[in-house]
């Protein structure tokens, strides 16, 4: 029974992971690629690690819990840092119909790029 649960978790995690990687390859700009990387790939890896924890000993379970908590804390921060850097560098939004609201709102746009020293 627990083997069946682990198998289902592996299959669902692989499907989610595949969707995330497909989004990395197919999405047109960084901002949309971050959706695939930050949500689909993270969820897929969490499901795969949960499948690894089922049926494992205490050593595996504790490491899986630590790794998932670590990933849940760090993935959103990393994605936000990448998005901030991309917006700072004025990367184009190639998605059709995309509107950069922070560029049209006065006072809320990205600060001017400082010249390298």
């Amino acid at each position, binding site marked *: 029974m627990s083997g069946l649960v682990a198998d289902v978790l592996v299959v669902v995690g692989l499907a989610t992971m595949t969707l995330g990687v497909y989004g990395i390859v197919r999405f047109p700009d960084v901002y949309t690629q971050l959706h695939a990387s930050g949500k689909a790939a993270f969820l897929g890896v969490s499901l795969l690690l949960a499948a690894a924890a089922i049926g494992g000993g205490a050593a595996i379970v504790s490491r899986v819990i630590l790794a998932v908590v670590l990933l849940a804390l760090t*993935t959103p921060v990393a994605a936000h840092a990448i998005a901030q850097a991309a917006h700072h560098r004025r990367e184009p939004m190639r998605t059709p119909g995309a509107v950069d609201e922070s560029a049209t709102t006065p006072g809320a746009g990205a600060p001017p790029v400082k010249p390298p020293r």
Partner: protein
Amino acid sequence: MRNDLVFFAGIAWLAVLLAVTIAAIGRARTSAERLVALDTAVLVLIGLLGLVAAESRRPYALDAAMVLALLSFVATLAAARYLGDRRPFDQPDEDGPR
């Protein structure tokens, strides 16, 4: 008991996904896209290590997975700060706090 075939197939499929993300690192158009692809490649590698640990019933691969998660976070953060500000950390004595 656990059906090992599913885990073997998962390891093989994750290896394919890892190859795809590495190819995505190569064909990224901008540095930020390259950083996103690298981040995803690390996530795929963590999943792969988890499946290897479950398949071999030894927890040591998960140690590598945890260290990889931490290292990739610090590396991504430093690279993103460098991309945005041209330097990884603020120097408050020159610019003041942001």
